[in-house]
């Protein structure tokens, strides 16, 4: 039986199609798989809350040493470099009243309050503008109210820095490692080109520890569940007059100041 050119081309085309699809099916088979039977669970010691919040008792933080001790505790645990210029990285820092509570219109504030330093950190807002503007979902809000970042996903666009009304975010203009004296081997560093900020020590809460700044504050900083009326933060807020930073913009910060 002789084959015409037309028949030959038909069979050749079918064969090529078959070969193509079979290799595509092989490729689909090769997609990475989870190990059957493996599961993911929350850790045994993990601390849970509906809404984590912090209360800073500014009356108990007086001297420069108080602040330095707290800042040092946070920055060593999280490998935050000390860069001595405008490219500095800060997770927790201090500033004066008029730059902290910018909504306050009082003209004749007590000089003691006006001259004092206030401890600043990410406010872990209820309505975080940084999360809204992040184009890659590198910054996100967890169910327990903590606003955290996935540095793997950060593309360094710095929209979040423009969005944050509290200046809580820092950009790594260069490799931070040369500015780190001692690296904490239990925590990662960051790399050039990503934004970073305070995490409310979410990694410490997972293993049952309080945030590093709370531990180092000798009781001046309280941490707990804002939705639990018996938590230390709710008790402190019930007994004292407290303020938050820039309440008028509606971000609902999770950091309260007792003044």
């Amino acid at each position: 039986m002789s084959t015409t050119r037309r028949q030959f081309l038909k069979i050749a085309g079918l064969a090529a199609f078959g070969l193509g699809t079979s290799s595509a099916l092989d490729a689909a088979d090769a997609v990475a798989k989870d190990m059957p039977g493996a599961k993911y669970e929350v850790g045994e010691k993990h601390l849970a809350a509906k809404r984590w919040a912090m209360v800073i008792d500014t009356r108990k933080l007086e001297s420069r040493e108080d602040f330095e001790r707290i800042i040092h505790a946070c920055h060593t645990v999280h490998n935050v470099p000390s860069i001595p210029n405008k490219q500095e990285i800060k997770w927790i820092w201090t500033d004066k009243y008029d730059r902290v509570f910018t909504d306050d219109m009082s003209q004749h504030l007590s000089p003691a309050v006006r001259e004092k330093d206030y401890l600043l950190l990410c406010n872990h807002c209820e309505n975080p503008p940084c999360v809204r503007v992040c184009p890659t979902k590198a910054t996100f809000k967890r169910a327990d109210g903590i606003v955290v970042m996935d540095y793997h996903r950060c593309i360094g666009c710095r929209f979040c820095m423009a969005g944050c009304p509290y200046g809580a975010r820092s950009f790594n203009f260069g490799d931070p490692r040369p500015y780190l004296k001692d690296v904490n081997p239990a925590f990662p560093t960051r790399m050039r080109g990503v934004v970073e900020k305070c995490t409310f020590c979410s990694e410490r809460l997972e293993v049952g520890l309080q945030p590093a700044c709370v531990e180092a504050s000798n009781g001046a900083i309280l941490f707990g569940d804002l939705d639990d009326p018996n938590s230390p933060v709710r008790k402190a807020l019930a007994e004292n007059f407290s303020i938050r930073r820039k309440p008028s913009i509606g971000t609902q910060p999770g950091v309260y100041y007792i003044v």
Partner: protein
Amino acid sequence: MYNGKYIIPGIVIFVGLFTFPFWSNLLTPKYERPQLAMPADQKECIEPAEYMRAEHMHILDVWRDQALREGKRAYVASNGKVWDISLQNTCMKCHANKADFCDKCHNSNSVSPYCWDCHVAPRGNQ
């Protein structure tokens, strides 16, 4: 053959160049699986070695999302053993010799993952 003295050497050169990958592969030494430094005090990894060899990057990928986004930092392996989800504090505790474990295989396969731009390599390595 018309112009054969040009055509035949031309074909020989063409075939030689075209089959370069095949004969250069035959001439170079055969690929050998690198000898990796295994942790001395541990017999088995979190999952069987074949699975880890093929899917360790997938596992790290899922680990990162589960730990960071879902808040689930305990990995219950297929044999029921529970592990803390952490590259630096779990994986690298056993595989402390990064140069002779991670790097050796990655180098011979020409892959350069950038884990260590941020994650801190184990001290035993420096």
